[in-house]
């Protein structure tokens, strides 16, 4: 299948809802197939690539840091960036600046851009298709 440009709009914050996992699975499939992928993250989703996410031990389960091996979305996003590059595509991830400022989520991993809803319009206009994964 020829390379296409696909846009996803995400709203959910990490660590709260299965929609985050499903969204990242969809983005992974798109990157794996070599498509160019745009992501516009707004509201709580701007925390998905937040650079200061840290793994933690779990005293309830009695696991230490290493055994807990808590998954972090910033690592998944970085791996998706790498996957896209490896497959000849690209993952262009824009965090909504207003949403970032409201939440103090300024420090994102390398490669994440700050933008505005105008970027979402540009993404959609320049894409072959788009999917908005909204909170209910």
């Amino acid at each position: 299948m020829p390379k296409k440009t696909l846009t996803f709009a995400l709203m959910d914050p990490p660590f709260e809802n299965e929609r985050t996992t499903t969204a990242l699975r969809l983005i992974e499939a798109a990157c794996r197939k070599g498509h160019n992928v745009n992501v516009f993250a707004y509201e709580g989703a701007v925390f998905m690539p937040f650079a200061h996410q840290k793994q933690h031990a779990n005293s309830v389960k009695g696991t230490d840091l290493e055994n807990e091996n808590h998954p972090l979305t910033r690592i998944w996003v970085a791996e998706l960036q790498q996957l896209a590059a490896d497959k000849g595509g690209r993952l262009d991830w824009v965090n909504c600046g207003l949403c970032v400022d409201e939440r103090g989520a300024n420090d994102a991993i390398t490669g994440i851009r700050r933008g505005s809803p105008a970027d979402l319009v540009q993404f959609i206009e320049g894409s072959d298709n788009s999917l908005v994964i909204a909170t209910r």
Partner: protein
Amino acid sequence: MTSYVIVESQDLYEASNAKSTLELCKNLASSGSNVEIVFVQNAVLGLRGREFAGLLAETAKSGVKFHADLISLQARGIRGDEIPGFVVPISLDLVIDAMADGKKMIWH
């Protein structure tokens, strides 16, 4: 002919408007569109048992193609023989291929 892919993520038992999605699918198919529905997350729970069997079968009879995310099924311990035969377990690659094909996408 317009093609639609509707991704249903809401649990039929909890979200009353998830049933409206099936109604939408049926109406689109009846008006001549190609319609596929993909059940993901807790939406797959409604595929098991008798509670929604009639509604699902009626929607399928209208020409709507049914898919269910295999990982969502497995995560909930739902076996292939527990869901209607017209529901095809799939990987989410199907959604990406549909997007790349230019089908109209709706997430619910």
